[in-house]
């Protein structure tokens, strides 16, 4: 495939790829980053591209895989919700500054717990409880079936609850 063909065939689907990445990662810059990577890889392999029956599907699969890689990267953690714990507290009516601090600590604690979960649990919990995706979408993104997803998610949610209550009992003894 030459550069003219490349542009004509692949540029029209850029928006579609971007929308997908943006939806999964909920971050404009991250999504942009992924799409650029996809195009870089496509361009690098343009010699072989002519053989691909459906380039759009191929590019979409590549985008999905890169999004999953990003989820798995050590840096991608539950703290990526883009919401500051302080904002959450303030949104909930008038509460004392002390209570805001406590709530923020607790929210940070949950983020820590989530980021320490095994990968399969962390990914599904992030996609469901942070990004709010439905199970079909999560299945599509991760390539796991829905039953497996639910088993992992249930374990993840219970683990968070368990660790939260352990930490808090412990904390109360300390105080």
């Amino acid at each position, binding site marked *: 495939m030459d550069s003219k063909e490349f542009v004509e065939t692949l540029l029209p689907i850029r928006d579609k790829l971007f929308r997908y990445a943006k939806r999964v990662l909920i971050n404009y810059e991250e999504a942009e980053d992924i799409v650029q990577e996809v195009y870089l890889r496509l361009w690098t392999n343009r010699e072989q591209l002519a053989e691909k029956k459906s380039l759009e599907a191929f590019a979409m699969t590549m985008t999905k895989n890169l999004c999953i890689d990003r989820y798995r990267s050590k840096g991608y953690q539950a703290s*990526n919700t883009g919401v500051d714990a302080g904002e959450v507290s303030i949104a909930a009516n008038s509460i004392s500054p002390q209570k805001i601090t406590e709530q923020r600590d607790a929210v940070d604690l*949950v983020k820590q717990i989530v980021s320490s979960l095994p990968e399969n649990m962390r990914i599904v919990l992030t996609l469901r409880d942070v990004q709010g995706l439905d199970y079909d979408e999560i299945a599509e993104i991760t390539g796991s079936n829905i039953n497996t997803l639910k088993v992992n998610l249930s374990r993840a949610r219970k683990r968070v609850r368990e660790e939260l209550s352990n930490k808090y009992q412990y904390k109360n003894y300390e105080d």
Partner: protein
Amino acid sequence: MKTDVKQIDVLIDKFYDCETTLEEEKYLKQYFHSDNVAPHHKILVPQFIFADNDSPNLSNSFGITQSEYE
């Protein structure tokens, strides 16, 4: 937000067994954001509010720098 604690108890159990719908999960989040959280639910508040996505911002809050990918 007027709430029926027994109904919330049921929903919370369903949540941990992954039997809640997205709508029900949204409802639970609203409950945990409200001032009417029952005393025996307080410990769960952080789990339900930590990911509040009402204002997903587009800033670089990922904690990952570009260079880690290069």
